[in-house]
């Protein structure tokens, strides 16, 4: 079992819909939780970064962490075609390498 599990999709939703992306993890030692967005043949771009359980909002993006369930989510409101990309959940210990999920390919249909 991988340390971080993420459904690879693809996930197709109509423009304007709310998108929900999720990951589960097995290692309770993870302390930092991130979401990266990656466009084709580009480097991962940090979208959201959280440390504790709870919600964090940034514009149209909300990250949610539930450490008791070892479950993290990313919500995208008012989705746009430009949001079409691969979304990678990621986590790490204190000062350590990132462990990524497989990434979910998201398509926003105009």
């Amino acid at each position, binding site marked *: 079992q991988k340390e971080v599990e993420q459904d690879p999709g693809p996930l197709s939703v109509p423009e304007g819909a709310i998108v929900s992306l999720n990951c589960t993890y097995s290692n309770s030692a993870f302390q*930092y939780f991130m979401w*990266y967005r990656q466009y084709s*043949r*580009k480097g991962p771009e940090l979208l959201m970064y959280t440390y504790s359980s709870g919600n964090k909002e940034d514009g149209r993006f909300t990250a949610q962490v539930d450490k008791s369930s070892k479950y993290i989510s990313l919500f995208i409101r008012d989705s746009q075609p430009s949001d079409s990309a691969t979304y*990678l959940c990621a986590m790490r210990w204190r*000062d*350590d390498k*990132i462990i990524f*999920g497989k990434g979910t390919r998201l398509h926003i249909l105009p």
Partner: protein
Amino acid sequence: AAGVIQSPRHLIKEKRETATLKCYPIPRHDTVYWYQQGPGQDPQFLISFYEKMQSDKGSIPDRFSAQQFSDYHSELNMSSLELGDSALYFCASSSPGGEQFFGPGTRLTVL
């Protein structure tokens, strides 16, 4: 804002050749990480450096080596290249305890 710079952006090599990838971190970032991303895969950690010393090692083949220099830039040296080494190689940098920011990557193709 300045970002992580990687060079070259694209590299084509033949089997058994060597390759050197370079990474220039964001100014004042002292930690550099190298990741390898195969087609359709998530990035896999290779190696990291903090203050010019190796700080962690992942699934890096013995044919690969890396170092961080006094100006904090890093180089990944790859020898005896194999077809399976074809991938995107990302460098990320961070400040102490901070988040990792990724460069645009070097696409290595081994023929």
